[in-house]
């Protein structure tokens, strides 16, 4: 079976800057795929090349087997892309905008019920006759999402759909994306909220400086981190044994977070040392590594933590 997206040897240079250094991977049909990376990693550049907005310096991309350049019409009909920038056409109202977009894809009145359904599901029904310029940022973002889906594409790519979106709307969007996915749509998501990616995506690619640093299922990615975290709140005046000092990864509101290598530092050895020095402890917590930790390790940079 052909993959939903095949990306082969894609390079992009802007002058001296290599935004993409030969990216190569596939996204299978029906996957919920996360494309993660710090600012400037090349995520949007890759998406814009898939969309046909940017010309790759080398390599090619196919959507369900259709090349995005030589067979661009078919490839584009199979794709729905939500751009990162909050763009809109101030000349039209919400419904007109969506109907026009459907028309570009060759869809007519037969998709109007679907447009109405999306307007309702994305909480835009009250605003359907309102001019695009009179919408709030979050509303414009939802229209962008609906716009990408007007022609019911089997492959959907969302470039930071939840950036600058309030908690409630983020929930709505999550439900909406899950729903799409459960109906068989391939969903590709970029986000800086790593919790969101961990929660939603089955497989994740981490890209940094134009290169893929990791590409695994979310489970594998989490499991490959050979660490666990132990958070200790010491009693007033207590001092951590010297052997444990180098393991301190963070100091969070007075609690010390120790990063324990699963093969070397067992919990029991840590507690043995604490007992030896008679360190009084007020509270203990353990934490499995999350995507944030893996992200920091692979890219040396922090993602954003979802509010």
């Amino acid at each position: 079976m052909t993959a939903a997206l095949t990306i082969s040897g894609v390079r992009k240079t802007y002058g001296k800057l290599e935004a993409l250094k030969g990216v190569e991977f596939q996204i299978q049909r029906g996957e919920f795929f996360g494309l993660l990376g710090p600012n400037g990693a090349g995520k949007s550049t890759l998406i814009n090349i898939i969309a046909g907005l940017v010309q790759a310096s080398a390599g090619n991309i196919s959507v369900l087997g259709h090349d995005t350049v030589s067979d661009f019409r078919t490839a584009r009909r199979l794709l729905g892309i939500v751009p990162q920038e909050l763009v809109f056409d101030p000349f039209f109202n919400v419904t007109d905008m969506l109907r026009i977009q459907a028309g570009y894809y060759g869809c007519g009145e037969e998709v109007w019920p679907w447009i109405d359904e999306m307007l309702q599901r994305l909480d835009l029904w009250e605003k359907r006759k309102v001019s695009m310029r009179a919408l709030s940022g979050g509303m414009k973002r939802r229209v962008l999402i609906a716009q990408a889906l007007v022609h019911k594409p089997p492959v959907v790519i969302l470039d930071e759909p939840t950036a600058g979106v309030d908690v409630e709307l983020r929930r709505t969007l999550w439900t909406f994306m899950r729903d799409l996915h459960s109906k068989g749509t391939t969903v590709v998501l970029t986000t800086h909220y790593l919790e969101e990616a961990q929660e939603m995506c089955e497989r994740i690619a981490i890209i940094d400086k134009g290169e893929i640093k990791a590409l695994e299922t979310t489970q594998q990615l989490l499991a490959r981190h050979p660490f666990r975290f132990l958070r200790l709140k010491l009693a007033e005046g207590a001092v951590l044994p010297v052997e444990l000092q180098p393991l301190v990864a963070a100091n969070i509101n007075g609690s010390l977070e120790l990063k324990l290598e699963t093969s070397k530092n067992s919990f029991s050895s840590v507690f043995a040392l604490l007992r030896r020095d008679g360190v009084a402890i007020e509270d203990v917590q353990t934490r499995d590594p999350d995507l944030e930790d893996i992200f920091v390790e692979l890219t040396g940079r922090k993602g954003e933590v979802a509010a």
Partner: protein
Amino acid sequence: MTPNQRGFYTLLKKEVMRFWAVLGQTVTAPVITALLYLLVFAQAMKGRAEIYPGVSYTEFLVPGLVMMTVIQNAFANTSSSLIQSKVMGNLVFLQMAPLGPWEWFFAYILAALVRTLIVASAMLVVVLPFVHLPIHQPLALIAIFVLTSGSLAVLGLIAGIVAQKFDHIAAFTNFLITPMSFLSGVFYSVHALPPFWYKASHFNPFFYMIDGFRFGFFGVSDVSIWHSLMWTAGFFAVMTAICLWMLITGYKMKK
């Protein structure tokens, strides 16, 4: 309707809706401006000798003013639409859609044709009760009109593709389109010009558009209608070739 046809038709409709939504700016204003020129010049030049036998100065002026307005509005329609979409960023909606260079080309050009047809008809309807205009060669009239409006719409598209901001379009309009449309024999016969300018006029494609259009009405003109048709068609062909090349290669549109 095939999906491609529907895509094209939608883009055409969107482009028409765009100028339709601001008719005051896109139709009424240019018609009024042209009528003011007519009023002022017809008054100022009253009693002057006829330029062609049997054709009064006012009659002579009308076709030129119509063409000048068509030239300016055809250019404005495509160039402003494209630069607005670019600056607002919403051009991506179109660029991501499964539309090819030909659909872009024809949709933008036809929309400009619709606008100039409305503008030209409005002008003629308003002046007709006051100015006698015979229609000597309807076919020449239609051919010149379509080629002129088409060429300038294509030129506007080219300007929109090349420009990165509104200023670039303004520069194009102020330093090229407006001067060339004024210096093309709208207000005078080029025979009245000093030799240098007389010669120079013959390198201005707008001169042939206006002269040819006048021929359509009166059956007389400064140069032969075939000459004008050839220049106008040639200009259209060259502009079209450049524009299609830009659209096909993604010139300045694909980063």
